[in-house]
């Protein structure tokens, strides 16, 4: 390459100054690229991942958001629901009532990295991410948002089907099951029913008794694995689901044209 010899002594400043002069006039008589931040703000796109908000009317307290949070910045906290909130609950309000203590997520934004998994894996679409990003605070405690501060109320709720984004469902290992029905009590979608098991079982007392076992309605299961966690006899485990009705992570309905 002979580029080296092409440059003369005047190219020390002539060539670069051509560019800078041009830009100087451009930004003096035009608008510079800078955004004067506190006075003017740029609009985030609709997909922006900002601060979370939770539509309590849709939330069923399954805890999947806390499960998938890579930073564990999201915890399920017990809350007291008012009667109005009970009535407004669109999805499984009877469950929320039945449960002894309903739980709703609280977020520590000091740990949050805004990855958006909680939004993507929420089976009801209750967890949303807004485009609000100015949440700086002077203390770490100020970044901990209790469950009730995350609540938003929407007029027209999105009607989404329950979806198992976790790709797994619980499977019963029937022998150790003691028929305590804890899984039924805790299942957030009411997809478990207790029914008479296939065979009798010897209890500790020596009696032979027919034990009720849980049966799963996999079309309603969201794979939250709450039943697995509460099971006292460790008779449940998660297995990759083969249910074809469950869709993947597609949040956008229609693919755009190329």
């Amino acid at each position, binding site marked *: 390459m002979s580029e080296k010899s092409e440059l003369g002594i005047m190219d*020390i*400043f002539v060539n*670069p*100054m051509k*560019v*800078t*002069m041009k*830009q*100087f006039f*451009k*930004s*003096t008589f035009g608008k*510079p*690229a*800078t955004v*004067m931040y506190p*006075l003017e703000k740029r609009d985030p796109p609709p997909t922006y991942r900002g601060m979370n908000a939770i539509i309590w009317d849709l939330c069923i307290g399954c805890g999947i958001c806390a499960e998938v949070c890579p930073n564990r910045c999201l915890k399920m906290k017990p809350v007291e629901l008012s009667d109005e909130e009970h009535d407004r609950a669109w999805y499984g309000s009877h469950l929320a009532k039945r449960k002894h203590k309903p739980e709703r997520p609280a977020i520590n934004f000091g740990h949050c990295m805004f990855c958006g998994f909680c939004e993507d894996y929420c089976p009801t679409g209750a967890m949303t991410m807004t485009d609000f990003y100015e949440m700086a605070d002077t203390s770490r405690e100020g970044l901990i948002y209790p469950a009730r501060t995350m609540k938003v109320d929407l007029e027209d709720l999105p009607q989404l089907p329950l979806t198992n984004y976790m790709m797994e469902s619980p499977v019963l290992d029937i022998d150790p099951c003691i028929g305590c029905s804890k899984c039924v009590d805790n299942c957030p979608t009411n997809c478990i029913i207790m029914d008479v098991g296939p065979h009798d079982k010897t209890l500790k007392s020596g009696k032979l008794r027919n034990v009720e076992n849980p049966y799963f309605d996999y079309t309603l299961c969201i794979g939250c694995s709450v039943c697995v966690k509460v099971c006292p006899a460790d008779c449940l485990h998660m297995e990759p689901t083969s249910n074809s009705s469950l869709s993947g992570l597609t949040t956008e309905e229609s693919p755009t044209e190329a």
Partner: protein
Amino acid sequence: MTLFGACRIMAELSIRILIPIFEFQEGLFPPFSNPAGWFADWLATDGGLDTMAWFYAVNIALMVGMTNLILVIHLERKIAARIQDRRGPMLSFRSLREVGEDLSGNAPSWKFKENYSGIGILQNVADGIKAFTKELIIPTKADRFLFTMGPIIFISSSVFLLALFPLSDRFAASSAPAGLMVIMAAFSIAPIGILTSGWASNNKYSMIGGMRSAAQLMSYEIPLLLSMAGVFLVAGSFDPVTIVEQQRESTWLFGLPMWNIIPQFIGFVVFMVCILAEVERVPFDLPEAEAELVEGWTTEYSGIRFMFFLMAEYIRGFAGAAVATILFLGGWAGPWPVPPEIWFLIKVYLIIIFWIFIRWSVPRIRTDQILVLGWKKLLPLSLINILIVIFMVEIYPYFTAIVNLPEVF
């Protein structure tokens, strides 16, 4: 009327107030002879009046220089911002206003402008307040005396420069016959301050920066002075006034004034490069190359000491541009309706703007390259310039007298 004449009148006016004050003080202790009385007597003499007048003149020069300093810094910031597609300092007023809100607890009643724009020059005030209120740190293992002396030498030699150059033949704080020589002498005090602070910081970056600076300034002094020598030869004087008068008087085609930039263009180029290196601006700012040496010899300094270095650099830049104007651009010469002082400042600011554009357009060059440039390119070029001037001033008129050549120069 000259600046000094005006100051003399101001001095005469002010001693009418001052002498009664001192005499009153003398009268307080009648049995003893009092220094206040001696001082009052001295003020009434011619020497006392002159000293007062000098005091005023130097202060006015200093004020002009400092005002220019703020303007240059603001100009640099704004032009740099425009070059880089930014806005530059704009909202300093807003932050001052917020300080007011914080201090008083409620919003101040005054409001300047709704969008707060166009008052970014107050950023200099904010910077000054910041620098003054910052802690002055002296490293434990530094040489305390030299560490403190470094910035003092640097800033005092630079402020000294401000009193030395005239804005016009009437607006001059000092008019020494050897004026430009004194200016260059003041210019070359600074390496002592740089070396001192670089060594006293007890930091490897600072030391390398100081060494680089010393090497650079020393190697560029020689072509700098040699390129000035051409002008001195033509004018036959070191006096700025004489040099400018000579440029104003010599004419060229169509009676246009022939400033030194035209016959001595090589000298002008060499001088501009050397003075850039002398005031350590990009592309020659490698003593404080922030990429490899953090901040060079100013690494360990903080607060007002660091501010002194920055201010001194801008003052030196302003002084360097002023010297270039006097030597090559005809000083305060210019058409009538605009006063000569303004002509002078216009030329100085044009040079400064050119430097600002250079600074934000090119990278920094390397130590070995800068020395190669200084010794191998600029030194021969400045010698060639002197040869041209000798031919012009001595040999050509000699032949003109014999052979009756047209008088070009």
